[in-house]
């Protein structure tokens, strides 16, 4: 107990001071609230009844609660769980492969003694600005690479992000002193060995950050599925939900044009609450995964600034 107290005091000496920290807390609390209130709103709406929305609009205090939107989603049964699995699978495999490729490429770019450094920097960077457009990419992926109705189709097209490569390179260059590599080279350590044994442990926070962002991108993606997946077996969660939403939207928008037969379908759709329930379905699992990455980011923090 006493030890803890001493430690705490010592830490306080290293901090910005109590008043400043209170201000920091207030600012951050306000911003965090700003971020979370819309999400609370989303949850409230997802449990509101359509009736309530029709009467008083979107409100934090609905006149009536309902789980219709969730029922509607759960009606999908096995497909929902299958899609959850697909999303997890794609996210995990995609992130692992993607981060490995990113680290390797970024590390080579970080090395000043790499002969083709500037060429490869430009080579990657150029593609963030210029692209062939949707139709040619679609054709190459589908017809040349056979990315259609398989897991590769959900993983491969998103493997490389030049933005993350450059961010990663920045992490390397800001946390690894040049001498470290020279020293390792003199020790006769091979390049791969140096990377794995020396560089990676130092840049853990950076790697965790880029992994997190990559994983989120995979988790959030529905676009690739829209392009390349027709077989329900491979549909990831986001796309499944997206499809439901666009189905509902289309029916509501065009009910007059489509004809009498869909009119009674429209009346039973949870058109306003569904969208919100879908967000909940997407966000809940990832909030559980989040602390895993955060451990590395913040763990680094604790070592970084408080030590000493």
């Amino acid at each position: 107990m006493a030890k803890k107290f001493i430690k705490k005091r010592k830490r306080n000496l290293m901090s910005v001071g109590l008043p400043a920290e209170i201000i920091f807390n207030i600012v951050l609390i306000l911003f965090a609230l700003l971020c979370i209130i819309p999400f609370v709103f989303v949850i409230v709406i997802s449990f509101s009844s359509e009736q309530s929305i029709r009467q008083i609009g979107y409100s934090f205090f609905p006149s009536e609660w309902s789980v219709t939107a969730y029922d509607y989603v759960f009606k999908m049964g096995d497909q929902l769980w299958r899609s959850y699995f697909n999303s997890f699978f794609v996210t995990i495999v995609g992130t692992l492969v993607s981060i490995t490729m990113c680290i390797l490429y970024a590390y080579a770019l970080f090395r000043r003694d790499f002969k083709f450094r500037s060429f490869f920097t430009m080579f990657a960077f150029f593609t963030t600005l210029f692209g062939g457009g949707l139709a040619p990419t679609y054709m190459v992926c589908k017809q040349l690479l056979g990315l259609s109705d398989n897991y590769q189709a959900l993983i491969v097209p998103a493997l490389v992000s030049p933005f993350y490569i450059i961010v990663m390179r920045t992490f390397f260059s800001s946390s690894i002193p040049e001498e470290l590599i020279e020293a390792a080279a003199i020790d006769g350590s091979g390049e791969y060995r140096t990377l794995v044994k020396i560089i990676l442990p130092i840049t853990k926070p950076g790697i965790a950050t880029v992994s997190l962002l990559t994983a989120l991108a995979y988790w959030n993606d529905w676009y690739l599925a829209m392009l390349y997946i027709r077989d329900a077996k491979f549909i990831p969660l986001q796309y499944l939900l997206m499809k439901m939403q666009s189905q509902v939207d289309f029916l509501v928008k065009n009910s007059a044009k489509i004809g009498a037969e869909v009119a009674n379908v429209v009346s039973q759709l949870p058109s306003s609450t569904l969208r919100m329930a879908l967000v909940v379905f997407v966000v809940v699992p990832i909030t559980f995964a989040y602390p895993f990455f955060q451990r590395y980011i913040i763990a680094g923090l604790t070592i970084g600034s408080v030590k000493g």
Partner: protein
Amino acid sequence: MKKALSLMLVGTMTVGLLSACGKTEEPASSVAESSVESSVEESVEETTEEEQVAEVGRPEEHVTLKMYFEGANVTDDSEALAAINDYLDEKLNVTLEPVWGTWGDFDTNAVLALQGGDDVDIYFTCSWTANEYGPFAKDGYYVRLDDPDNNLIEKYGKEVWDILPEVLKIGAEVDGADGRGVYAVPGFKDTAAQYCWDVNVTKLEELGYTLDDIKSRSFFDFGDIFAAAKEKFGDDFYPLLPEGTVLEEMVTNCYGVTGDTSEIVYESINPEDPSKPGAHGTTLVNRFATDEFKDYAKKVREYYLAGYIDPQVTNSEQSASVRTNHQLEGSYLIGTQSYAFGYEAQVSKERGIDVQFVPTSPAFTNTVTSQGAMMAISTASKNPERAMMFLNLLNTDPYLFTLVDFGVEGTHYNLNDEGEAVFTDKHADYSLWINGTGNVTLLPPQEGQGADFQDKFREFYGNAYSLPTLGWSMNCEEISDKCAAVANASAEYALPLDMGSVDPDDVLEGFIKKLNDNGAEDVVQTANDQLAEFLAAN
């Protein structure tokens, strides 16, 4: 490896196809990727098999056709598909591989599949989806079906062509990539439009009015009824429920034309007899620049300020859903509706109120409605001939069409004593959007529609007036930049003016000036020139 395999497959398919149509005089010129190799073989086959294949019967080679079904809600197609394919195998030696698309697919996936050259043979298209019939035919996505060099309709589609009403055939003719002709098979469904007041009779009678009071009044005289409604049902009640441009079109009797990407070119319609020219003759107008529009905008502004229109409906992104909500709640007095046969009873049931439609004009057919639902063969299709054979059979064979749309009798539906189809629980696993599949008159009536439904249906649409401009659609290709600029300028105030949320006295003049600065006058002029040419030729 994959590529080589697919090439081989294409090769064998092409050969098969040609042998199948060996008896026709010319080899199919529109067959995709016909290689030198296959044309050599073709000549060989032609000599050997000429006598064997004497008539269009079951072709020799087996092919698989992919068809995009939009708006389908299918989770288990095994039984229906087995029955369909048994039948197709026997008739055409074809296996159907449906692509079950949802509603959202209209706007994204189908377009992408077309533009990406996917191996889908048959797509749904029409005047209102993203893969719009006219422009996509012009850009070369659809096979010309009456190509003089390879007239698929004549060869394999005679039966369907014979049963289609004339108005649909006229509408199907457009300027496409391979000349003016037919690029899709029109579906035989509701072919005419009729705009109506959608009246909440339940509420109307509570106010002491009757349907006759609506019939005898025009839009400009609804004020007292609205005022009474506001008085009785309170401040949160909005009696008038307008929809996008529909209200404007009904009141001004000017309607949009097909193919116009600027969204301002309107034609006037004679509300007494739509087959005769309207107030502006056969001259097309800028919809915002007419006196009718000015009067309309002023009146709707008056109604808006008096609180007769829900401000939320005037909000473009929410408009549709808010409107639907009001309808479902029955919290409106007068709305607008594009009439579809047999619709009143259905909406009454669904909204829990008594809904009656009061038409503001007779039913009429224009190019937009005649292109309401069509099926096109993709130019990327390897087997356009077979696809045509299939479409022909689908649209003429009641057994096949019912099988595709309703599923298997005894499993997905049963016929009752009156010959009406009654769906079983299994229907939930296999339900299609019927209007998107073709000739709906082949179907047995559904429960409650009555045994003579199809006859009434045909009669109603058979009696519709055809507009003088039927068959004409605007071609914006040469002036696409101007159309884009005008469309963008018009988006700024079109909806607010239609809904009354801005004052026409403040903005209308400046708005029209801005439209003209962006080239509206030229756009209308071009459209008029094109129409004059069309009318002179017909």
